[in-house]
C-alpha cells in the first residue's frame, strides 16, 4: 500500500503486498526542458481500480508527468509499467491503444458536431459513416447506462452545458477502451452540482474496475473522492498518502513547502455608508435572452458583498454592466451619490473615472493582453492617466518604476517587468491584475472568480490583499462559483438564479445547505 511517510524520491523499491495489482507504475521518470527539470526521478504507483489524486501547485510538474504517461512527451530517463509490464508510450495513439484515456482541462471537442460525431471522431470505422454510427451508438448506449453517464447523443456540443461536454470527453475515452482515465483539473469549469455529478460518475467507473488519476489543486476534492494521493512540488513527488490518513492542512503544507493558513481571518472593519445602489437593472443579451431581471441591491463602504450562484445565472452580466463593458439597458445605478440611468453614456473608461476597479472573471481574455510585457499590462485601462504619460506619449520610465513597485509589493513572480504576462502562472497573473486594480485606489472593487485556476500560495495572498482593501474602506463586490470562498470572505451574501436575486443572507447566519438550495432556485427567501 501507499505509505504515509515522506520520501526522498529515489526509493523505487518500496515493497508491496503481493495481492496488490498496479495499473500504472512510473519508475524514476526524469524530464528536462533545457536547464529546467520538469520531472526529477518521479516514482508513482497507482493501484488498479483505485482513484489516485495528484496535487501540486502550478508548475510543480503534474501536467508534464501526465503528458509523459499519455505519450505527448518522451521522458529522458525512467520506466513506465502498465499492469506490471514495461511499455514504451511514444505517442497518444499508442497510449490510447494501451488503454489510457485523458480528459484535458480544455476540452477537445468540435462545437458544431453532435455528441455522437465527436465520440466517433478519429474512430469512424468504414468509408461510409452509417455503419460506424450505428455501432458506436450501441456501444455508447451501453456505456452510458453502465456508468450513469447521461448524455443526449444527438445534441450539438455547442448547445449542451459544460458538465455534459465533460461527460462526452469521458465517453470518448471509454469508447476507445480506456482502462486508465487521467483527468486534468476536471472541476475547474464545473458548478458545484456538476462536480457532484462528475464524482458520482468517477465512483461508478471505479466500481467497474477503471483506474482513475485525478490532477487537481482543490484539496477538498482530493479528500472527498480519492483513495490515495501524491503531492508534487518542484518536479518531484514529495509525499504519498492514503487519503483517509491525511488532512487538507497536511497536503497544503507539503504542496507549498511551508505551513499555510486555509482559513481566513476577517478583520473587524467599519461598514460605512452605502456607496453603490443598483436599482431595477434588467438586461437582454444579444440573442434576446433576459439575462438580468429587475436586479436591485446596495453595497456599502468596507463591506464585501458576495454574489453566489451557479455559473451562468446572470452574475457575469451584472459584473459587465457595473464595470461598463456592457451598456446599461434598463434601470439605474447610483455610485457615490451620482446616478447613471440607462440613456446615459456608460463604458469602462467612465466606470474607472467613477472609482470602480474590476478584476474580471477571465483574466486571459479580459484582464491581460497576454503577449504584452508585464509593464504594459500593469497600466491596462489606466494608460491614459497622467502618471504614466505626458501628452500623447507614454512615459516608459515612469511605467517601469510603477510596475517594479507593483510586483514587489504584491509578490508577482518572476519579478521581471519585461516578461510576457502570458508566461506567468495563473496565480501570478491574477496577482498582477489584482495589484493593478488595487493600486488605482478604487472606491468600489468588482472581483470575478478571484481564485479560478490559482494555486494555494497565491490564494492565501489574494485573500489577504482583499481583506486589507476592505479594512481601508473599499467596497468589494465578489462574484464566485466557489461557495466556500463566498461564505468565508463576504459580510453579506446575495444569491442569484436565472437572472434574479432569489435571496439575501448574512454570511454568519447562512449554511452551505441553505445557500445551495437558493442557488438551485428551489427556495425563495
Amino acid at each position, binding site marked *: 500500500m501507499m505509505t504515509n511517510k515522506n520520501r526522498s524520491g529515489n526509493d523505487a523499491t518500496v515493497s508491496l503486498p503481493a495481492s496488490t495489482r498496479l495499473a500504472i507504475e512510473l519508475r524514476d521518470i526524469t524530464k528536462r526542458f533545457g*536547464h529546467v527539470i520538469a520531472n526529477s526521478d518521479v516514482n508513482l504507483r497507482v493501484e488498479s481500480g483505485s482513484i489516485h489524486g495528484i496535487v501540486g501547485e502550478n508548475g510543480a510538474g503534474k501536467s*508534464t508527468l501526465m503528458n509523459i504517461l499519455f505519450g505527448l512527451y518522451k521522458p529522458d530517463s525512467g520506466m513506465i509499467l502498465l499492469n506490471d509490464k514495461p511499455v514504451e508510450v511514444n505517442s497518444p495513439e499508442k497510449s490510447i491503444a494501451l488503454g489510457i484515456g485523458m480528459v484535458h482541462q480544455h476540452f477537445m471537442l468540435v462545437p458544431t458536431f453532435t455528441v455522437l460525431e465527436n465520440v466517433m471522431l478519429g474512430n469512424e470505422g468504414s468509408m461510409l459513416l452509417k455503419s460506424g454510427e450505428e455501432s458506436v451508438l450501441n456501444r455508447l448506449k451501453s456505456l452510458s447506462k453502465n456508468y450513469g453517464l447521461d448524455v443526449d447523443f444527438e445534441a450539438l456540443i455547442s448547445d449542451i452545458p459544460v458538465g455534459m461536454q465533460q461527460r462526452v470527453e469521458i465517453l470518448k475515452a471509454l469508447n476507445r477502451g480506456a482502462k486508465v482515465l487521467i483527468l486534468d483539473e476536471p472541476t475547474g469549469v464545473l458548478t458545484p452540482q456538476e462536480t457532484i455529478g462528475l464524482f458520482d460518475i468517477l465512483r461508478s467507473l471505479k466500481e467497474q474496475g477503471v483506474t482513475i488519476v485525478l490532477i487537481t489543486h482543490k484539496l477538498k476534492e482530493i479528500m472527498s473522492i480519492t483513495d490515495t494521493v501524491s503531492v508534487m512540488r518542484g518536479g518531484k513527488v514529495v509525499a504519498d498518502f492514503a487519503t483517509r490518513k491525511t488532512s487538507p492542512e497536511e497536503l497544503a503544507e507539503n504542496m507549498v513547502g511551508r505551513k499555510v493558513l486555509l482559513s481566513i481571518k476577517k478583520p473587524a472593519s467599519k461598514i460605512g455608508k452605502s456607496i453603490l445602489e443598483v436599482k431595477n437593472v434588467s438586461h437582454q443579451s444579444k440573442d434576446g435572452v433576459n439575462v438580468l431581471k429587475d436586479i436591485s441591491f446596495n453595497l456599502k463602504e468596507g463591506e464585501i458583498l458576495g454574489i453566489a450562484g451557479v455559473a451562468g445565472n446572470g452574475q457575469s452580466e451584472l459584473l459587465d454592466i457595473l464595470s461598463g463593458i456592457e451598456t446599461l439597458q434598463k434601470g439605474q445605478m447610483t455610485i457615490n451619490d451620482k446616478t447613471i440611468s440607462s440613456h446615459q453614456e456608460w463604458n*469602462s473608461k467612465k466606470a474607472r473615472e467613477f472609482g470602480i476597479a474590476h478584476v474580471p472573471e477571465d483574466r486571459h481574455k479580459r484582464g491581460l493582453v497576454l503577449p504584452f510585457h508585464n509593464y504594459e499590462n500593469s497600466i491596462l485601462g489606466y494608460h491614459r492617466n497622467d502618471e504614466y504619460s505626458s501628452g500623447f506619449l507614454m512615459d516608459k520610465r515612469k511605467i517601469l518604476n510603477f510596475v517594479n513597485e507593483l510586483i514587489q509589493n504584491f509578490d508577482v513572480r518572476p519579478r521581471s517587468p519585461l516578461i510576457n504576462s502570458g508566461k506567468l502562472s495563473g496565480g501570478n497573473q491574477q496577482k498582477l491584475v489584482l495589484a493593478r486594480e488595487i493600486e488605482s485606489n478604487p472606491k468600489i472593487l468588482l472581483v470575478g472568480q478571484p481564485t479560478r485556476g490559482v494555486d494555494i500560495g497565491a490564494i492565501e495572498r489574494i485573500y489577504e490583499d482583499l481583506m486589507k482593501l476592505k479594512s481601508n474602506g473599499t467596497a468589494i463586490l465578489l462574484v464566485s462559483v466557489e461557495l466556500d470562498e463566498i461564505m468565508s470572505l463576504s459580510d453579506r451574501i446575495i444569491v442569484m438564479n436565472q437572472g434574479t436575486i432569489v435571496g439575501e443572507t448574512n454570511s454568519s447566519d447562512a449554511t452551505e445547505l441553505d445557500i445551495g438550495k437558493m442557488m438551485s432556485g428551489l427556495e425563495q427567501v
Partner: protein
Amino acid sequence: MSDSNIIPKWLSVGVIPLLNLLLAFCVSGLFIFFIGENPFKAISVMIKGAFYYPGAIGYTLYYTTNFIFTGLAVALAFHARLFNIGGEGQAYIGGLGVGLTCLIFDQYLAGFLVTILAILGSVIFGAVWGIIPGYLQAKRGSHIVITTIMFNFIAAALMVYLLVNVIIEPGQMSPETRDFASGVGLVQIHMLAKYLGLNMAMSPLNLSFGIALIVSVGFWFLVWRTKFGYEVRSLGHSETAAIYAGIKVSYTIIIVMAISGGLAGLVAINELLGVHNKLLLGFTAGYGFTGIAVALMGRNHPFGIFLASLLFGALYQGGTELDFEFSSITREMVLLIQGLIILFSGALAYMLNPLVENIYIKYYGNYNNA
C-alpha cells in the same frame, strides 16, 4: 503574428528569414538552370544590376521607397489585427490627391507650396480610401479583407474613368494629365548632388526616400511610444481586453485604417512628384500588393520593413537588369523569382520553424516548458 516561444529571437527573426530567402533563391536557380542559363551568372548580374552599375543603387532605393510606404501601411493595420489588402487602391487614390492638388493649384501658388499641398493631398485621399472600409468593418461588420479588395477595383475603375474622360490632357491619346508646372515636385537626389558639386549617376531616387525614412521612425514612435499605439496593439492582441480597458474599438479601427491608407497614399509622391511629374494610369504597378509580403517579411517592424523593402527594391531593379542581359530570361521569369520569394518568405514563412526548433532543441535544448 505569434512567434514561437521555443526558439530565441535571433533565430526566429534573423536566421529563419534568411533561410527562407536562400531557399527561394535555390528554387529560382533551378528554374534558371532549366531554361538553359547559368544561375550563378544570373545572380551576379542581378546583384550588379541592383547595386553596382552606375545609378543602380539609386534605382534600387527608388523602388525601396514605394515598398516602405506600402509595407508600413499593411503593418500598421496588422498591429490592430486588420488585414489591409487595399494598399494598391489607396496608393492609386493617393495619386488622385496629388494630381488634383497640382492641377488646381500649380497655376496660382509657388512650386514648393503646391508640393507640400500635394503631399498632404496624397495622404488625405489615401486615408479616405482606407477610412471607408474601416468604417464598414467597425460599424457594419463588413470584413475588411473583402471590402479593401473591392476598393482596389473601384479605385482602378474610377481612375480609368477620370483619366480617360475628365482630367486627360486635351488633344492627346494616352490617358495622362498634363505635366505639373515646373517647380512642382520632389527633387531627385542626383540633381541635389549636382548642386552640392558631387557627381552622381542619374536615377529616379528623390526626396521621397528621405520622407520614407522619417515616416518609418514616426511609425515606430506611434506604435510603441504613444497611448494610441498602445491601444492599437491591445486591440490587435485581444479585443476583449481592449474593451475591458475602455478602448473605443470602432474609433480605433477607423483611425488605424485612415493612417494605413494615408501611408499607402504616399507611394504617389515618390511616383508622381518624384518621377513622372504628371498623373498617369497604373503607376502603382502592384506595389500595394507587394507591401503585404514586405510587412510579413519585416515582421511589422519598421526596421524589418526597411530591410525587406531593400530586398524587394533590389529584386525589382536587379530583375530589370536580368531581363536586359539574358535573351532567354524574360520579364516573366523575373516575376517568377519575385513570386518565389514572396511564397517562401510570406506564405511559407513558418515552414522551416519546426525544423529549426528541433535542431535547436537537440543541440542547445534551452527551452522552458515546465
